[in-house]
């Protein structure tokens, strides 16, 4: 069963670059003079790569946040980290730092994590539900700030911000995929490196402490790395919600394994999930593609509610 899923996933990956508004035929991709060649190597392939590695970062980040904050609903999105990155990026667009959008997005994410951290240290013993509320409050605050930025921006800038907040995987040229590929792989390597620590944290903070883990240090390292990852991902693709929420949950119900054993699995399937969503968005659109964030939110929204209902029952 496991292998069938892997094969199907690889197949999706393999065919994804060929389908869209214009279908590319396999025979043309090595023919330099053909239109298909440019389309494939400059647009489609980079897009699929970005989709895969962005999905991977989002999924892995979701899994780590859920584990570290002890709440199945905490992801970089529900806790406002992604909104922070969005606001940072929008700020860069409006105030003319276009070339530094990635850096601003990254700062937005880090700033949010710092705020969350300073609040958690004031809460008694990891009150995660209050933390979630703080995240929601932050998100509202950020969207208000985003509104102000809209108000200050001119027409092209607001169009850019709108497009950005809907999420987009448009990337031109293979070399632009490098930051996201590197970041996501580093995050995976780092989290696998801390597998034992993560597993101990998954028992309880006290138990991890007693077994000789420097709980605060490990938590900080992991959360900062996740924020860096999210900062990079959001600054390139815009906020793409729900991947980090639903994919880890689905994988947990299928695999029935603890989170530390699902790090690479989540990485892989979250990537595939986003490639699939992107494939859908490119093929049901008419004049232009439906933004990827719309597809994931469409699938994720109902699932989030389903999760809430199921949690109540348990």
């Amino acid at each position: 069963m496991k292998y069938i899923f892997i094969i199907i996933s690889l197949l999706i990956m393999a065919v994804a670059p060929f389908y869209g508004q214009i279908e590319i035929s396999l025979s043309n991709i090595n023919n330099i003079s053909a239109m298909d060649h440019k389309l494939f190597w400059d647009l489609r392939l980079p897009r699929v790569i970005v989709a895969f590695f962005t999905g991977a970062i989002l999924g892995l980040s979701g899994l780590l946040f859920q584990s570290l904050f002890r709440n199945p609903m905490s992801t970089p999105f529900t806790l406002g980290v992604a909104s922070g990155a969005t606001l940072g990026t929008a700020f860069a667009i409006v105030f003319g730092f276009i070339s530094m959008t990635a850096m601003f997005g990254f700062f937005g994410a880090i700033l949010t994590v710092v705020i969350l951290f300073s609040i958690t240290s004031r809460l008694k013993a990891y009150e995660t539900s209050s933390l979630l509320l703080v995240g929601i409050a932050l998100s509202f605050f950020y969207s208000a700030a985003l509104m102000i930025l809209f108000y200050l921006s001119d027409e092209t800038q607001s169009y850019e911000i709108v497009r950005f907040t809907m999420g987009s995987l448009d990337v031109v040229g293979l070399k632009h995929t490098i930051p996201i590929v590197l970041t996501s792989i580093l995050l995976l390597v780092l989290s696998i490196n801390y597998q034992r620590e993560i597993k101990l944290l998954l028992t309880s903070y006290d138990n991890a402490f007693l077994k000789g883990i420097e709980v605060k240090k490990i938590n900080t390292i992991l959360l900062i790395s996740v924020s860096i990852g999210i900062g990079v991902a959001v600054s390139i693709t815009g906020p793409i919600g729900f991947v980090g929420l639903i994919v880890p949950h689905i994988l947990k119900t299928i695999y029935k394994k603890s989170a530390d054993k699902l790090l690479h699995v989540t990485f892989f399937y979250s990537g595939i999930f986003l490639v699939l969503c992107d494939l859908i968005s490119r093929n049901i659109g008419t004049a232009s593609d439906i933004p990827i964030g719309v597809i994931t939110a469409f699938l994720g929204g109902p699932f989030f509610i389903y999760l809430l209902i199921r949690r109540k029952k348990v």
Partner: protein
Amino acid sequence: MLKISNFSNSILSNIDFHIKEDENLIILGSNGAGKSTLAKVLCGITYSDSVELFSQNLSELSAKQRAQFINYIPPKLEIFDEYISLYEYLELSKLYSELSIQDAISLLGLDELKEKHCIKLSSGEQQLSMLASSLLHNAKLTIFDEPTSNLDPQKTLNVYNILKSDKLQNRIIITHDLNLAYKLGYKILYLQNGKIEFFDKSEKFFEEANLYKIFGSSIKHVDDYFMVNL
């Protein structure tokens, strides 16, 4: 070996005692007296700079050293991830013991449960699992917080035999079970309202006059046993 000097917080006041290398300790006390609070201070979960372990200040130990020196077994198993199996939990606990994981499992009769997810175990089974984990951790000093509170008579006997065996190094046992305290015969510390009410040898604690002073007529001494006078 263990020394706490003049520690106070919102629950405990003026806690000051020490135990030597060859001593073990029983901590007794009414509900809410501060036994678990004291245990958490002693093992470092609650931060303080008043605890000394093997002549080193607990707050200055590295995380690894601390784990080698002290371990605390809480009354209830806390596990966040629902898919961690008993075997995996014990794997995480194996630190300084020569004992294999399988040995610990057999000792506590957990063979049939080892693939089960921890949160699905009954409270008694969880208690046994934590005991197995303490054997595998094998810290120089282990604090057990009510290790027999959820066990049936046979398991209690089994756990009693393990608690007094040399499979553990030094130990502090928090309990309400006077029989357990009496049979183990360790030094006794009695807490009341966050203060040390009694700290001396077992024989002195179990003198009739002292028992009456602490428990009134709620305890009955029959032969070599202490029971609640229902």
